[in-house]
Structures are given as C-alpha cells and as structure tokens.
C-alpha cells in the first residue's frame, strides 16, 4: 500500500504504484465467463502511456479537461490514469444518461478531449463540439466521423509527466441532470489524497485482494473504491461487461472477489437470493440455519470474525464466492435491518455517508461495533456538526468540514456560495449525532432525492417534464420529505397537484412512462390551496411539505401503468388506488441496471 503523504497529486501516486507493483495483476476484464482483458501493473503503464502520448499530442496539459463516457471496463481506468499523467482534469459522465443529457454536460464542461466507447458514441451520433475524440471498440468499417480509435491511440514521442499541486482540480464531477442547472463539483488532488488516506486507515486493501467494480465508475464511490484505492494498494480491479446475476455470481466465485461496493438495491437482490436458496431447502435445514445464524450473530456482536463466520455459514459465503471480506454500501440510504442481516451472516456491510461535494464519504461505520441504524462516525479529519438543531428532537442540518470538501461548483459562484459557508459544506441532510458520535440521518432538507439505486434526482428535473400537465400547480417530493418517519430506504416520488382536470391521471401516466425509470413518480396527491411561493415565485418546498403532512397519506393515488390493450389485464384496476389499499403502489421500478 502506498501512503499518500509525500504525494502532491493523484497522477504522481498512481505513477509510483504502477512501478512498485509492476508484476501484480492490476486489471481483469470479463465478458460473461470469458476473460477479455488482463493487465499487470507494468502492462497497465505501457498501455496508458500510449494514450497519454496521444493526449499530449492532442494538446492535453495542466488543467485541460478530458471527459470520459464509458461503461465499467479496463479502458475507463487506463484512460483516467492517462489524463492524470498529463495533468488533466477528468470529467466523468454517466454512460447511462441520454445522449441529450450527455451533450448538455459536455457543453457545460467544454472538455478538450472526449474518451468514449462505440455504444455511447453511436448514441451521440458522433455529434459533439469536443475537438478531439477517442472511441473504443469501434466495429470494422464503422463510421468514425473524425474521431480516433482508442486502441490505436499513440503520439509521436513518449509522454511527459505533468506535475500538479494538491490544490489543483483533479476531477469535475456532475451531480445533477439537465432540467436543473448542471452542478459540476470541482474536486482537488488534496480531496482525493486525503479521502484515500482516511479510507485505507480503516479498510486497507492488500496485494492479492480483488475488487469487483459493478457500480458505474463515474460514480464517486466506484471512482474511489474501484480505481484509486485498489491501484494504490496493489490490488486487482475486476470488471464484468454484463451485470446479469448469473455472471455476477460466476465472477464472485471464479475471480475470488474480496471486496465490492453496492447500492441498496443490489443488497436487496442479494438478500432475496439467500432467502430463495434457503426456501428450497428442507424445513429442518432452514431451522438449523436459523440457529447457526443466531450463534454467529452472538459471536460477532463486538466485531466481525471472518474465519469463524465462514466456517459456520459456509453455504451462504460460498454463494458469494467464499472470499468476500467486505461489502461497501452507499449512494442511498441503507435499510438498517438489511445491513444487520448481512452482518449477522458474517458479511459485513460498510455503510458510508457522503456527497459528491465531499469527494466520496464523510462518515463510515467502522464495524467496531456495528451499528446498522447509523451511517457511522466522521472519518479522521472530518468535522460534522448539527446546525439549527430542534431543541426537542435534536434534529438539525448536517454540516461538514474537512479536507475532502470540494473547491466549489464549476462556473457557478452563486450555487457555490449557497452550499459552502466558511469552509463548511451545508449537506442539506437532516440528522442527529448520538453520544458515541455516530451520525443518524433522518431526512433531507434540500431538494435532491437519492433513490434506492443510488441515483440523484432533482425534483425540478421531473417538474419540467410535467410542465404542461392539465393542472394549476404541481411539485415533486420524496414521500419521506412529506411524511418523515418512514424508512429512508423506502422513499418514493410523489407529485402534489392543485386543480387537476379529469385527464390529469392519464396524461401523467403517459408522461411518467417516458421518463428514465429512476425519475418516475409513484403517486400523486391533490392539494386544494395555492402553493406557498417566494417573491421570485419559487415554490417554498419545506412549507408546502409541512402543509401536505397534515393530509392523510391514504389520499395518495398511484400512477396507473399504461396499457395498450383495451381491456385491462387481470389484477389491474382502472382507477388508481391508495397506497395502503394495494400495498404495492409504491413498488420501485428500476430498469435494466441499478
């Protein structure tokens, strides 16, 4: 493991790692059950050097912005390192965004170079304003529209390393969609080096460990846990080009995965799999499993005991490949019971709390002992305070200060001034701190909503899509914002609407269906009075939420699914029913990927 103290930049630290661990395997890429690529640290360096040389030739220098739009694969990390080597700023863009959304972010970031893969390039129809583009995996004979093949990238001479200082920007990470103004968080080398230091103090990776990268690498968690940390520790990063459960399982087992980061949705799927496997066993075995599980829980009350748990609960551990040491879970609120379930099975889930604005994480549960109902203690160097505390409940807004807090939003001084006050980051989340220093989150103050799949949603985005619906006013909320107290992991989106016509439900359902799955609303609630607004006519969300709170939540109507056939299928009601009547109205509907 390389200690970060003597390094001024990420590029410098990783450059040393590639030499120090030169014979170890850095990357393994699989396509289903086939290994499609593998790089030792030395091979990583040689491949990345060629791209760095091409970037130098394309004019990439200190502070040049270079965007990456790629799914999880080896070339993501190779590209990112090449950019850092040339002193550039990485602009990671979500490959799952629509081409229009990607274009909007490219327009805002104005990168000098775009690095992408053919599937995304095809989506963009080769039309961007970026001067130079490298595209990977271009089929034979496909039109490149002036772009260069990633695989052929090289320059006329070996690349020159460009040093950076800790206060220089390393990445520009976007934390919102297109409906609202894009918010590009400027994160510095200092932010990342300090975050790395804090994380490996608690959860160091070792040479030989294997991290399975399934969360998108543009996401803050995977960027840190699936790029910086493993490479700086001499571990191996494993990518799987498909996220089908059977291939995830196969990879966990055959690649001897030791670490992975997940979002709550995936944790839920894992729990379902364990329970399904158990249900197939005879009742006696199920009962015995329950007893052994309880025994393991009792023996690991104070701290995890991996070897013991693995012996006691071998079938469960084998289902996860038998080598898993830790699961990191973040990106959304984790159900405490679920986290405890995994912990009791000897599969500790490290729950963290963070924001893109603060690099990756601010607090983590250090497992000594495990508290599934909190997001843990602040990492060393991070200060957390509860401001504007309610004297009765002790709940207030979570403010954070420390070396991982961003420099600000790119080209947006107003929004920066709104969230950064005297070095403190106003997180917009509501919480309390217990006597042992654990942070417990109870809700959100700011408008952003995080789904169970870890996606950030801004209500304004959805409201702009619903702009011409037949009603006087509407506003989108997370259900937990209106009715706090429900588990944050079970939040859903609700539209509050005034003076809707009879056509409203049908048109809402149609428009809702056209939205990306994670932005779809689950229900709507009618509100008779004019919405409270500011002088500039912005909806006062907090005040409106308080007013809505007094309404019976049974009044929430589900958004009916859209069916093409004239007769509705059995079991579907023509008129939406209340949440409590069906119990399934608020079912999450994520799509092909988490």
């Amino acid at each position: 493991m390389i200690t970060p103290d003597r390094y001024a930049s990420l590029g410098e630290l990783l450059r040393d790692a590639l030499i120090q661990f030169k014979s170890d395997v850095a990357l393994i890429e699989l396509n289903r059950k086939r290994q499609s690529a593998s790089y030792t640290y030395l091979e990583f360096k040689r491949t990345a050097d060629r791209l760095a040389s091409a970037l130098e030739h394309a004019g990439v220098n200190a502070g040049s912005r270079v965007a990456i739009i790629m799914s999880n694969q080896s070339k993501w990390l190779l590209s990112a390192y090449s950019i850092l080597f040339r002193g550039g700023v990485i602009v990671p863009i979500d490959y799952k965004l629509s081409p229009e959304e990607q274009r909007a972010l490219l327009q805002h970031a104005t990168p000098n170079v775009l690095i992408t893969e053919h599937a995304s390039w095809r989506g963009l129809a080769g039309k961007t304003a970026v001067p130079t583009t490298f595209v990977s995996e271009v089929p034979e004979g496909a039109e490149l529209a002036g772009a260069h093949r990633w695989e052929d990238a090289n320059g006329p001479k070996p690349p020159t390393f460009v040093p950076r200082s800790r206060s220089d920007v390393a990445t520009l990470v976007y934390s919102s969609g297109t409906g609202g103004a894009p918010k590009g968080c400027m994160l510095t080398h200092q932010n990342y080096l300090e975050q790395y230091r804090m994380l490996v103090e608690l959860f160091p990776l070792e040479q030989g460990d294997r991290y399975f990268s399934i969360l998108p690498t543009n996401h803050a968690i995977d960027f840190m846990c699936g790029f910086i940390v493993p490479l700086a520790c001499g571990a191996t990063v494993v990518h799987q080009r498909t996220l089908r459960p059977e291939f995830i399982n196969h990879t966990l087992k055959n690649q001897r995965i030791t670490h992975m980061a997940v979002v709550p949705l995936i944790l839920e799927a894992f729990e379902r799999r364990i329970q399904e496997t158990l249900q197939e066993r005879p009742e006696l075995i199920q009962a015995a499993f329950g007893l052994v599980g309880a025994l393991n829980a009792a023996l690991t009350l104070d701290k995890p005991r991996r070897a013991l748990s693995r012996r006691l609960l071998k079938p469960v551990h084998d289902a996860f490949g038998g080598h898993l040491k830790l699961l990191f879970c973040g990106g959304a609120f984790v159900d405490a019971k679920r986290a405890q379930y995994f912990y009791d099975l000897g599969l500790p889930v490290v729950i963290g709390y963070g924001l893109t604005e603060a690099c990756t994480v601010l607090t983590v549960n250090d497992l000594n002992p495990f508290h599934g109902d909190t997001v843990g203690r602040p990492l060393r160097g991070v200060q957390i305070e509860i401001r504007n505390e309610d004297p009765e409940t002790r709940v207030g807004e979570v403010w954070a200060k420390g070396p991982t807090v961003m420099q600000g939003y790119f080209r947006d001084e107003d929004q920066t001034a709104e969230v950064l006050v005297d070095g403190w980051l106003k997180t917009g989340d509501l919480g309390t701190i217990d006597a042992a220093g654990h942070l417990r989150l109870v809700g959100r103050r700011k408008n952003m909503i995080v789904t169970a799949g870890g996606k950030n949603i801004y209500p304004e985005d959805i409201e702009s899509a619903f702009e011409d619906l037949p009603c006087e006013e509407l506003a989108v909320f997370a259900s937990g914002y209106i009715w706090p107290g429900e588990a944050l992991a079970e939040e859903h989106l609700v539209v509050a609407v005034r003076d809707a016509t009879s056509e409203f439900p049908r048109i809402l359902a149609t428009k809702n269906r056209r939205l990306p799955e994670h932005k779809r609303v689950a229900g709507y609630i009618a509100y008779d009075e004019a919405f409270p607004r500011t002088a500039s006519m912005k909806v006062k969300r907090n005040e409106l939420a308080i007013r809505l709170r007094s309404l019976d939540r049974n009044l929430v109507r589900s958004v009916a699914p859209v069916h093409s056939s004239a007769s509705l299928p059995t079991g579907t009601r023509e008129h939406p029913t209340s949440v409590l009547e069906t119990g399934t109205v608020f079912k999450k509907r994520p799509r092909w990927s988490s």
Partner: protein
Amino acid sequence: MTQNDITTKLISLAAERFQQEASTLSAADDLFDRLGIDSYQALELLSDVENAFNVEVPDYELQGVHTFAALAEVIGRRL
C-alpha cells in the same frame, strides 16, 4: 422466425419465470410495470431469453427497451 414469433416466445418465457398467464401479456406491455419486476429480475429473464434463442445481447443494447415488442426487435437483430 418472424417478429411475432419472437414476441410470443418472449412472453411465454416471462410468463413461465414470473408465474403469470401468458394470455394476459401483450407485445406492447411495459414488461417492468406489467410483471412488477426490478432490474435484477429483468436480467434473470434476459438470461432465459439468451439461452432460448441462443444469442448474446450486450447490456448496452437494452438501454431504452421497455416493452416485449422492443425486446423482440433487439433479439431479432441478432438471430
């Protein structure tokens, strides 16, 4: 194999995996809404589909695919 044949086969695979009556499912149904499944279960269904048709469909081909008919089109392109 026509587009209709592919769709019919897809519907029968979905009905079998999620224990529903195939006759209640139609080509234009949103398979997530109609089957009430999440992404993980959808990918399980896709594995059945790949085995049945003996094709491989990369994950990126599925972005924006919501209906049985659209899925049939993606499969059809690979047969």
